[in-house]
């Protein structure tokens, strides 16, 4: 699963759930500061991602996820457990 695909999907989710302009979603976007997401919004984003990628995100993995890039790492890490999530976050 490549990062671009996950970012594309996550952007769609952000537009749908958070009502943001797709142009402002990037790997470095902070959910809270840039996308104006509260804790409930994040839960909604996670649930939408779980649905789209047919994954299940454990609650304890959500701690420390603040940016879109970190969320992408998380999704890839869970979807492809054999390969450690690449830390190619171009921050």
């Amino acid at each position: 699963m490549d990062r671009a695909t996950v970012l594309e999907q996550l952007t769609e989710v952000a537009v749908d759930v958070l009502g943001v302009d797709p142009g402002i979603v990037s790997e470095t976007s902070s959910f809270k500061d840039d996308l104006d997401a509260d804790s409930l919004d994040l839960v909604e984003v996670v649930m939408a991602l779980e649905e789209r990628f047919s994954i299940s995100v454990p609650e304890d993995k959500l701690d420390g996820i603040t940016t879109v890039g970190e969320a992408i790492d998380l999704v890839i890490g869970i979807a492809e457990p054999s390969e450690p999530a690449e830390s190619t976050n171009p921050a």
Partner: protein
Amino acid sequence: MGGRVALVTGASRGIGRAVAVALAADGHRVGVCFGSDAAAGAETCQSIESTGGEALAIQVDVSRPESVDAAFAQIEEAWGKVEVLVSNAGINRDGLVMRMGDAQWAEVLRTNLDGAFHAVRRATPGMVRARWGRIVLVGSVVALTGSPGQANYAAAKAGLIGLTRTVARELGSRGITVNLVAPGPITTAMTDALSDERKAQMTGQVPLGRFGTPEEVAAVVAFLCSDAAGYVSGAVLPVDGGMGMGH
């Protein structure tokens, strides 16, 4: 009014049946969930359908999350997401604390408290997405007064107040209201089982001097499920003839 998709647990008789009928009368389509008595569940549906309403009887064991999930899935397939949830399913296994067994305690907590949690948890993602929802939990006056012989029942019903108010805070920003109705003594199969002496004693504690009817509880629940009740959330609303005044 109405036109929403509603789900009522414990809807085969008593308060739950009256709630299902009242919601259908308001124009909602109603998932009539029953625990074991399929014939009674069908009766509730017939009662709704005889007046032109839409109902769907579904067997569910609220103490089991997978059973609750299946019931919601069935409603979703038929009508779409549940917008109105009334968690009413409840049992009692009365006995004095000194003689109350672990199973007796756990069984009541599992159905009356865990069951409400399972239903609320399953219902809320759809409501959050829709930015609208109505949740009503059916509690009891004994949650706050206590009731000899009902430690398990009263503890479970008291737990529902904390659940109600927490979810009301968690989801208020999404247009979802969560309230609890606290009935006093109501004429149902549960209270029919009481001795005449106990019934007379309870009646004596009610300023209105009588037991209530399931319909009187249902009317309040239906109001809380309506658009008109949009600014009521986290409330514990007594329907008890005044029995609990001062809570």
